[in-house]
Structure formats: C-alpha cells, structure tokens
C-alpha cells in the first residue's frame, strides 16, 4: 500500500521534502513537445473542490529527460513518469524513451486528458502500443467521464496494462459571481477535490470488480478515512492531489490517520482492507494483478 501524489499536484523540485514523504513521486504529465498550457486564469475554487484548465504545461520529453529527470533522481524517491500524448504513436514513443532510464520505476499513461479520444478502442490501442515499447510497469489513468468505465478498464487490461490509476478530473464549469461569465479563460475545467470522491469511489469499485488489477485510487482524498474508503472500494494504493495544495504535510498526516483507521477496523494489515466494500473481495496482490495482465497479452 503506497501513498503517492496525483500527477500535476506536486513539483518535487520546488517541494522536495513533500516528495520525500511519499512512497513514490509521480511527475506532471510529460508530452512529446513542450507546452505552455492555457491562458490564465486557469484555476478556480468551487464548493468542495476546484477547477483547473492548466492544459498539460510541461517542458516536453527532451528537456524532461535532459534536465528534470536527473534532478528528480537526486531526491532518491522512486519516480513514476506520467506521459500524455495526442496520438497512439506518441505514447509509444514516450514509453520507448523512458524504457532504459533506471530511475523510472513505473509509467503512468494519462489517456484521460481532454484532447485524446476517450473511447475504449483508443485506450486499448494506446496501452497496447505502450506495452510493446517498454518493460516498465504501466499504470493506465482513466477518466470517470465515460458511460462504462469498467469496459475501458477491461480494454486496458486486455492490452497489457499492469494497473489502473483512478480517477482523473471530470469537466466542470464555474461562473463569475458578478458577470456570470466562465471564471476560467478556457471555459470549463477539470473538477478535483472533495467533490470528486464519490465519483472516484464508483470508478474504483467498478474497475476492481471488472479487472482485479492493482489500482491507485485518487479523487478527493483529504483524510485517512477517505483513503480507507478508496482502499475498501478496491484501491491497492492511493494518490493525493488537490489536498497537497492546501496541506503539503498531508502524506504524513494521512498515513498516520490511515494507520489508526486500520487499527480501529481490526483487520490487521492495511492490505487486508483492499476490496472490503465488495461482497467477495478478490484476493489480489500487485503481482497477481500483474501476471493476470501479462497472461492476456
């Protein structure tokens, strides 16, 4: 059971102590070319959460490999690299470029960025092409904004993903109090924070049942109790996003809160709580999930 950060919600280089308090650091999604992101304003607070339309601002894979990754390596925290693309071949290329970098522990495929078609067929294609390009563990990050997320998860599993990251943000809109115009320059933006938790729980619950894959659960975690609920729904690890903005001390706090939740629950190890929400928790472990994924390739 690991506690990670959610992609795009921590910069390990500006907040190294926070990164070191995690079991692994997940980078902001890296794309083939540098991206400046969308015009400001690109964040807005809403009731129980926030909207963002950052637009995948990142230095691009060349600069990332040459400048960012060597500096991240110095932190001596396991590194997961999140990659984002706009075509199947781009994901494969990004995975290929990361494959021989020993400091990269795993790759997260952000197939849920709004500019990529989110249909199961294309998720399957992206995962299959990425699988062929790297031996690193692959986590596929899905959007909850889909009619049947379990079907998308199954497509990712069939194509060889080792695990799932659930969930990315879901589009929301906030209007200015006075002008009633959108508060973000781009109009709508991704909703994250507490408001996302029930959506994340539903996605984790459905995908756990559908695939048995190891899941990194995220969406609105602000306390150990929230983390426990995602674990009970089926997450084997959890990631902290928006809470890190308000409380960079959240990893240590939530770890401690989770430990006392588990003690109260009386189930022994935290891993025994995985899937408790289900009638019959599938007895999965990371390796079991992984070999299941491998066998369908």
């Amino acid at each position, binding site marked *: 059971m690991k506690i990670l950060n959610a992609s795009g919600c921590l910069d390990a280089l500006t907040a190294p102590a926070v990164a070191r308090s995690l079991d692994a650091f997940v980078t902001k999604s890296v794309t083939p070319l540098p991206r400046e*992101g969308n015009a400001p304003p690109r964040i807005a607070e809403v009731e129980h959460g926030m909207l963002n339309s950052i637009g995948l601002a990142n230095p691009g894979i060349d600069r990332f490999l040459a400048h960012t990754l060597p500096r991240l390596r110095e932190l001596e925290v396991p590194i997961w690299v999140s990659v984002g693309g706009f075509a199947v071949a781009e994901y494969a290329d990004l995975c290929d470029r990361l494959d021989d970098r020993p400091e990269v522990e795993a790759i997260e495929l952000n197939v849920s960025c709004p500019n990529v078609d989110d249909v199961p067929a294309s998720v399957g294609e992206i995962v299959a092409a990425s699988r062929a390009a790297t031996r690193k563990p692959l986590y596929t990050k899905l959007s909850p904004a889909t009619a049947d997320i379990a079907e998308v998860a199954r497509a990712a599993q069939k194509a060889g993903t080792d695990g799932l990251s659930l969930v990315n943000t879901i589009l929301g809109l906030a209007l200015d109090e006075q002008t009633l115009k959108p508060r973000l320059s781009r109009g709508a933006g991704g909703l994250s924070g507490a408001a996302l938790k029930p959506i994340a729980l539903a996605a984790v619950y459905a995908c756990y049942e559908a695939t048995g894959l190891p899941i990194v659960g995220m969406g609105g975690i602000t306390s150990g109790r929230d983390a426990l609920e995602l674990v009970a729904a089926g997450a084997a690890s959890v990631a902290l996003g928006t809470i890190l903005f308000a409380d*960079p001390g959240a990893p240590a706090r939530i770890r401690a809160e989770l430990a006392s939740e588990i003690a109260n629950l009386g189930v022994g190890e935290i891993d025994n709580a995985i899937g408790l929400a289900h009638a019959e928790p599938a007895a999965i472990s990371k390796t079991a999930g992984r070999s299941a994924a491998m066998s369908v390739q």
Partner: protein
Amino acid sequence: MQRARARVTGAEQIGPYTLLRVARGSLEPGIPGQFFMLEAPGRPLPRPMSLCLTPPGELAFLIDPIGPGTRALCALQPGDRLAILGPLGNGYRLDVERPLLVGGGIGAAPLPYLSDALGHPPAILGFRSDWHAEAAQLVPNAEVVVEPTFVTEALSPGHDVFACGPEPMLAAVAKLEPAAQLAWEAPMACGHGACYGCAVQIDGEIKRLCVEGPVLAAEAVAA
C-alpha cells in the same frame, strides 16, 4: 517553507480592511514581499497573503474582504486557529540607495514590513476613498493620494521604486520606472510550485509567479 497551525491573537478593522494578527510560533517572517498561504476556514484552498507587519511574537496580515476566502479570514476571532504555510516566493531586494515605496489600495499590505526593513523611507499610497486610506497609518512617512489622483502623478524620478498594487498601477509604474521592483498577483492554489495555476509571462516565458515572484523587476514583465 514551514507549516503551522497559528492562533489568532487579534483582528482589527482598518478602514474596509482587517489586520489579522497571529502568534508567530515556529513561522519565520521571511523577506518583505514574500507571502504566506493562509487556510481560509471552510474553503478548499488557502489564500496567498503578503506579510504586513511583524509585531514581537506575531505575524500580521492586512486583508481586503473581496470574496468568500478573504471574508472567512476577516471573520476570524482571537483564539481561532488556522494553518499557515510560508514564507514563500521571492521578496524585494533591499540593497538600494534611494528607496521609495509605492502602493495602491490593498497593495499597501506588504509595505509596513518593507518600510521597517528599509528604515522608513518615503512612501506614496493611493486609495479609492478616505475610508480605504485609513490603511496609510500603517506605513510611516507616507504621502496619500485619493482617486481621482493616481500615485504615478505623485512619483518623482531618481528613486529605487518598490511597488505593490493593482495591475494597471504596476503597469503605469513600470513605464515610468523600468528598474522598479513590482509585486504581482495571480490566482494561486498552492504557493509552492505544484499547481501551475499562477503562470504568468516573465522574460517572455510562461513561469510560475509563486516560484519566480511575486516580486519581479519591472523589465521582466514588460506587459
């Protein structure tokens, strides 16, 4: 970057603004122009605030209640507690010869601490009304102008200008004083480089204001 739960020691009304005092605890005041992220009770995100004053054992923030977060902060009472993170960002460079402080409205907030650090140099403060101008009492040696007069009309050349205020004021100051140090604002969710919400154009590139600023040389932000 320290985070502490600080106890409110006082909340005074100054014109439309509230001077919120908290017990300093383990928090360092930092350099004038740096800022802190203050937990806004009941809101998901904290709010960036410049440090205004450093009374012994305390930190004080001058807050303009313009929306839900700042209103929640202004409603705090002595004895309440709130999480505070900081000091953050880059403050003003203090190694200058002829300092002049220029503030507009709530932009006066970082100037009392800056004035203390510089030995109370002259200041020009502009406000919307006499009521708002009550905040000028916090800045020693301040000349006050009230709209329709603007601070730039009172600006005389030959100074090292430190400015904080609304964007149009900063842009006007930058035109007159290209070497001025200006404190900018942008929407901030985190204040520590994580969210990329505060991106602005600096030296022709999109950068994070909370990391590179909020104080920038006027020529870096040629609007």
